């Protein structure tokens, strides 16, 4: 082929797709120049802050564990194996969800399916895209961990090069498995039943983990040897991370052996991983294309799985023949007779949208469910703790954890609420209800719903830690204030920075307002927990006279009120002047 032919050669579909994707990514990167500098600075600062903080956390954690007499090395190694085992499961789950969405709920896939591009090529393209999308967060998580581990163990420079190779080969396995599961799930389950099954599975795994990892009460008669006994049990319980067929085991073994200078053994594990990655990657690249088309066709052609059951058929038929009675939400809200009917209608609409969006209640359930399991297990912890310092410390940390969970949810789901009215904004915007009352209603609904969960969790935390009633009242009051503030912040900023063009909530959240909401919420939580902890006397050697908590509480309440009032005021002012 001469040079002219080479220039005129038509690139393969895969090369074309890659080129277009890179061009799009480059343009997105270029768009950063035109976005707010403050936003760029905040995002960059957050990323750097995360890397530095997590590195310090891992490094200090490893130092702490490494100092454990006699068992330091063993515990450090087990920690590494455990981390990679957990990350492998998370990566597999992430690949499954992203792969499913990318293959079957993606408009580009539909476009390509009508182009002269083979199913195999479309599948390969989506496979690579899924791998990149699902793995970047994993790389972001393991980079500081591996750097901290290397520094802690005084690793040579080539350790860091080797880990890059090991991790690169490793991420192909969860992507291959995730894609395989995603295709088969699409063939046999519809989206709704898939989501329900995933949440069900996650809850079962969570419950099984909670039972398996349940702490045991140590008997007094073996107190002398209880540390060694505990360590022994800990090592036995976490032995699953050393299961030789787990890909995370090969990765961890490769890392550990390379660090110890056992190059041959490390290379062996690298080759094991490479052979599996090549085998499953090859199978995926050569055979799943046809299956992908089958699954796509099935996924687009199917009535709901639940619709095949007689009970659901009868229910659907009843729904067709009878007028809508209003449902549970409406019946419940009818009791709140003092609320105007239009406000009740808006509340019913928002409750229905939340309930029918599996992502929203699924993630809420997962986040608070995890926290609930952890808090329930605190009873074993408090039984063994005699020092009130730790009890109090944990109670404040629980306040922080509960608020952070709430902040994640308010930023993810409450912040985009106003924007999500999107093209429908004219309906409520033109209604006699008025846009300001819409915002207020959204605020009260979100705050009061969240309050049920946050107060419940804090009261449970206090109960599990055997704290006195006055501390339960104190923490319940504090978490209530924080709930109102975090909700107000999300609702207010959501109205202040609306994005009516987007239908995708995650894109709305990734804008300036969403990032600001996340950062402000995070800073507010850290500030509140630290301020309140500083005000409490439990950590001081001697109790101060008078009421030492008062000024700290005043400061906390003032900041909370300001962060609630200001964004809400600005948001409502902006909404009033918004041209619908």
């Amino acid at each position, binding site marked *: 082929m001469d040079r002219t032919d080479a220039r005129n050669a038509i690139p393969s579909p895969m090369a074309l797709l890659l080129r277009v994707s890179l061009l799009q990514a480059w343009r997105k990167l270029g768009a950063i120049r035109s976005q707010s500098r403050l936003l760029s600075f905040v995002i960059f600062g957050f990323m750097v802050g995360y890397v530095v903080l997590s590195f310090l956390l891992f490094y200090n954690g490893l130092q702490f564990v490494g100092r454990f007499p006699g068992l330091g090395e063993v515990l450090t190694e087990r920690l590494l194996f455990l981390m990679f085992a957990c990350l492998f499961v998370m990566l597999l789950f992430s690949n499954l969800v992203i792969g499913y969405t990318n293959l079957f709920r993606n408009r580009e896939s539909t476009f390509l399916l*009508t182009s002269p591009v083979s199913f195999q090529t479309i599948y390969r393209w989506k496979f690579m895209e899924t791998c990149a999308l699902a793995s970047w967060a994993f790389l972001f998580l393991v980079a500081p961990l591996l750097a901290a581990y290397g520094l802690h163990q005084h690793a040579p420079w080539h350790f860091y090069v080797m880990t890059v190779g090991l991790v690169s080969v490793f991420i192909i396995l969860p992507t291959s498995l995730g894609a395989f599961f995603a295709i088969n799930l699409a063939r046999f389950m519809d989206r709704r039943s898939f989501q329900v099954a995933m949440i069900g599975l996650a809850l079962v795994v969570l419950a099984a983990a909670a039972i398996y990892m349940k702490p045991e009460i140590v008997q007094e008669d073996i107190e002398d040897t209880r540390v060694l006994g505990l360590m022994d049990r800990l090592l036995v319980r976490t032995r699953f991370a050393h299961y030789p067929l787990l890909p995370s085991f090969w990765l961890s073994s490769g890392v550990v052996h390379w660090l110890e200078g056992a190059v041959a053994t490390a290379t062996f594990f690298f080759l094991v991983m490479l052979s599996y990655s090549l085998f499953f990657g090859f199978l995926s690249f050569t055979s799943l294309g046809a299956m992908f088309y089958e699954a*796509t066709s099935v996924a687009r052609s199917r009535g709901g799985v639940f*619709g095949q059951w007689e009970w659901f058929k009868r229910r659907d038929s009843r729904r067709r023949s009878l007028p809508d009675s209003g449902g549970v939400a409406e019946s419940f809200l009818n009791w709140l007779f003092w609320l105007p009917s239009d406000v009740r209608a808006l509340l019913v609409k928002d409750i229905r949208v939340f309930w029918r969006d599996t992502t929203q209640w699924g993630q809420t359930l997962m986040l608070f469910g995890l926290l609930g399991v952890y808090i329930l297990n605190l009873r074993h912890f408090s039984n063994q703790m005699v020092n009130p310092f730790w009890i109090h410390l944990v109670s404040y940390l629980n306040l922080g954890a509960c608020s952070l969970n709430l902040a994640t949810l308010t930023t993810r789901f409450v912040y985009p609420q106003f924007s999500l009215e999107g093209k429908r904004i004219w309906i409520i915007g033109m209604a006699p209800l008025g846009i300001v009352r819409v915002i207020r209603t959204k605020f009260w609904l979100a705050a009061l719903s969240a309050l049920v969960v946050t107060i419940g969790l804090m009261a449970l935390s206090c109960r599990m830690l055997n704290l006195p009633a006055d501390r339960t009242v104190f923490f319940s009051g504090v978490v209530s204030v924080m709930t109102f503030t975090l909700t107000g912040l999300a609702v207010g900023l959501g109205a202040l920075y609306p994005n009516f063009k987007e239908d995708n909530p995650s894109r709305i959240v990734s804008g300036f307002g969403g990032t600001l909401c996340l950062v402000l919420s995070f800073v507010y939580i850290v500030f509140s927990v630290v301020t309140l902890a500083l005000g409490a006397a439990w950590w001081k050697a001697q109790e101060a006279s008078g009421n030492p908590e008062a000024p700290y509480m005043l400061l906390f309440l003032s900041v909370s009120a300001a962060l609630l009032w200001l964004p809400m005021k600005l948001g409502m002012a902006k909404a009033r002047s918004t041209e619908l």
Partner: protein
Amino acid sequence: MIELIHLVKKFGDLVAVNDISIEIPAGEFFCVLGPNAAGKTTTIKMLTGLIKPTSGAAKVCGIDVQKDPLEARKRMAYVPDFPFLYDKLTPWEFIRFTGQLFQMPDAEIRSRSEELIARFHLDEYLRKPIEGLSHGTRQRIAISAALLHRPDVFVIDEPMVGLDPQHARVVKDILRERADEGMTVFLSTHQLSIAEEMANRIGIINRGAFAGVGTLDELRSQSGSDGKLENCFLSLTAEAAEEPETAPIA
């Protein structure tokens, strides 16, 4: 040419398309009409190979869409009602990308797109990102890109959504010209005036089957109504609606 041979599509218990058969020769402008949920889009999806038929076959230029999808798709173009475009690309980049997907040499892409760009008045948008363009402009870009490789069969769903009268005229003119040159057009719409003006034959789908197929005169005689297509349409779809329901199948 297009051949739909005893096409059936079931979604669970529901029969969305119930034994549709038709042959549309090369150069024919065929319009599909029908009430909402009649089965038009499902038929298009089977014709373009997006979904598999439960039974029956769809052929494009004699090639079975399921048996040899790649060859069938090379001869076909499909523009949905809300087409997918890469938002960060410019219209020119997207048109060129589509041409390359169809293995067209650069010189050919350039020469063919010049005419389409001029007729659709896309010149001023060529270097602007697609994300900032209106729905109508995006629709013009999608149609230009789809026509670029001179397909033998052109399938289009609601082509006039978002288009101003001037560009709606351009679309009609181009499709008519291409049909005269031998391209088969399969157009699905709710706008009866387009079918009345453009189609050689019209198919009215109701409840997953053809309630009537033919020229306007033939439809008049089939429906027993005079005058406008609207009367034929209402008459044929009303007749079918009164008949006992065929779907769902157990």
